[in-house]
């Protein structure tokens, strides 16, 4: 039976994972994401799943990579310095095509920064944190209910494209409590991993289907394949030839790029007649809704394009937005990160104004309203 609850974003993320069929969590305590680990520690054994607190952040993500190879849906959660430490395995899971989900509840950085204060300063790290060229899928919930639904979505995407998916929460969303209607978990469709359609003798572990994604066998089912972080060919074994290298990197990117329209998620708020567009995401979107409502009362035509999937960046949609409005404002809790992507997509067609705040406080609706009025 559906339930109405008052939950924190972090709690909703953990419950979303359980609803999606997650049965394995490994992690390390770090503020402000720790509640996710605490809830998983309690909830997973109840559903027959496993929780383990590892010796460090790297081990946390390493263990979920291992568990995913056995066919389990897996989660780890982190913040700040922990997200930096996890980058090594994010790269591994990308090249070895191991589905994993990482929740990063952003706090002020760099380094230890301000552990309990909100920021959105990891947006570029989400894109480029691990070395080398790689595709990324990252989602930014802006409410407690969305923490639940986007966590489920993260598993759909991660299983479908066989890659890490990042849930980029921020401290505002992770720690606030609000109303959420939680459906009966039995009514939620569990994302399914595409398994091999041939027997072990014909199986090539990294031979893609036409969607660019190879079917994945669970360890222990007789397929006996090799998983490596080295560049490999469709057999899965190392092959460092220029041709194999280019082929693999191209496929990893293209499996995401060809589906960008399916992956892209955004919300338009009062944009129909807007002359000013606010492009934002996550906790800052909450300020934008309020500021827009206040501005509308004063007759200012402003609306919001809220990024739900930030990576891959919805370049096409932002370019279209630039055709409709006179100016774009990008408020974010950092020194200016996604604003660069917006500028790139807008290509100078309209002015793009950053509204950066990096003092550890959220942007208040009034501040944003003043900014819009002073444009």
């Amino acid at each position: 039976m559906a339930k109405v609850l008052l939950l924190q974003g972090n709690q909703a993320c953990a419950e979303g994972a359980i609803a999606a069929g997650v049965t394995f969590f490994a992690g390390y305590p770090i503020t402000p994401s720790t509640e996710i680990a605490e809830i998983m520690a309690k909830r997973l054994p109840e559903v027959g799943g496993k929780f383990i607190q590892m010796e460090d952040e790297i081990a946390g993500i390493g263990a979920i990579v291992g568990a995913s190879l056995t066919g389990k849906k897996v989660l780890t959660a982190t913040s700040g310095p922990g997200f930096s430490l996890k980058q090594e395995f994010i790269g591994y899971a990308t090249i070895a095509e191991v589905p994993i989900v990482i929740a990063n509840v952003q706090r002020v950085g760099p380094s230890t920064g301000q552990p309990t204060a909100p920021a959105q300063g990891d947006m570029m790290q989400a894109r480029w944190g691990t070395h080398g060229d790689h595709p990324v899928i990252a989602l930014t919930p802006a409410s407690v209910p969305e923490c639940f639904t986007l966590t489920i979505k993260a598993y759909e995407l991660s299983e479908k494209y066989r890659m890490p998916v990042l849930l980029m929460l921020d401290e505002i969303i992770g720690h606030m409590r609000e109303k959420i209607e939680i459906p009966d978990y039995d009514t939620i469709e569990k994302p399914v991993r595409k398994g091999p359609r041939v027997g072990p003798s014909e199986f090539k572990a990294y031979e893609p289907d036409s969607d660019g994604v190879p079917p994945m066998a669970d360890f222990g089912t007789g397929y006996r394949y090799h998983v490596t972080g080295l560049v490999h060919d469709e057999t899965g074994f190392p092959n460092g030839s220029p041709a194999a290298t280019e082929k693999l990197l191209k496929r990893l990117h293209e499996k995401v790029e060809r589906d960008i329209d399916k992956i892209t998620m955004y919300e338009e708020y009062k944009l129909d007649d807007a002359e000013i567009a606010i492009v934002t995401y996550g906790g800052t979107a909450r300020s934008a809704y309020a500021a827009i409502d206040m501005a509308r009362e004063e007759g200012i035509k402003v609306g919001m394009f809220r990024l739900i999937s930030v990576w891959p960046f919805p370049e096409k949609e932002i370019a279209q937005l630039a055709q409709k409005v006179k100016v774009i404002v990008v408020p974010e809790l950092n020194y200016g990160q996604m604003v660069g992507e917006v500028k790139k997509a807008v290509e100078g067609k309209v002015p793009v104004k950053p509204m950066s705040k990096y003092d550890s406080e959220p942007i208040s609706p009034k501040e944003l309203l003043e900014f819009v009025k002073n444009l």
Partner: protein
Amino acid sequence: MEKLIEKYYRPRLPHIWCPGCGNGIVTSSIIKAIDKLGLDQDKTVIVSGIGCSSRASGYLNFDTVHSLHGRALPVATGIKLADPELNVIVITGDGDGTAIGGNHFIHTARRNINLTVILFNNNIYGMTGGQYSPLTPTDSKATTAPYGTLERAFDIAELAKAAGATYVARGTAFHANMLVDVIAKGISHDGFSLIEAVTQCPIYFGRQNKKGDASAMLKTQRDNAVTVEAAKKLSPEQLEGKFKIGVLHQSEAPEYTKQYQAIIDRAQKGAK
């Protein structure tokens, strides 16, 4: 032997190891131990890190993971805890397992999860061309220690024991039959097992330290190794410069995945 090759090795020769390297002997000892125990090949997983020894996973016909440098144990822990039915064997080296992976090493031992770790100890970083590791003896030459190493080496067996490993053994490439035996015992042991396999690197350790060729290094293993039984009869003076081989430590403690299953049973009872 030919049959073992066909059954347990992937047709991926030649391997990357240098002439005279002991890694082939250690790898075949693992295979012989697996064969001796009759492990289900489909239910056995080999996980390795990065380095010369860690390349072994790619040659062996099981589900295999060539993971990240130092990170074989977290990946293996994830596999074993997620599916305790699988036999999980970890192949690592002295640099991979005790330097970059040192923290994972002590904590995995502490947890007493049923993994069997075979640590190929060649006293050097071979893959990157001869740099010193935490198991390089003091005052050895390495490309990053042209004046000799200052640091003391770990006794990795003692470290494992202190960290809570419930099975600790040492063997050498020279004593290959005994190595098979201590690996088999480690796999059968229900808990965290460490087998240190002393192996020779004539190219990157031997040459820099004038240890002679591979056969000379194997002879050194023969001359310096003392079985646990024989060591009992020797005085500390007589043991100077020697190292013990055989089962160095074995104890009983609750195994992690079994303990966790008990938690699941409790939580599910509570929920209903």
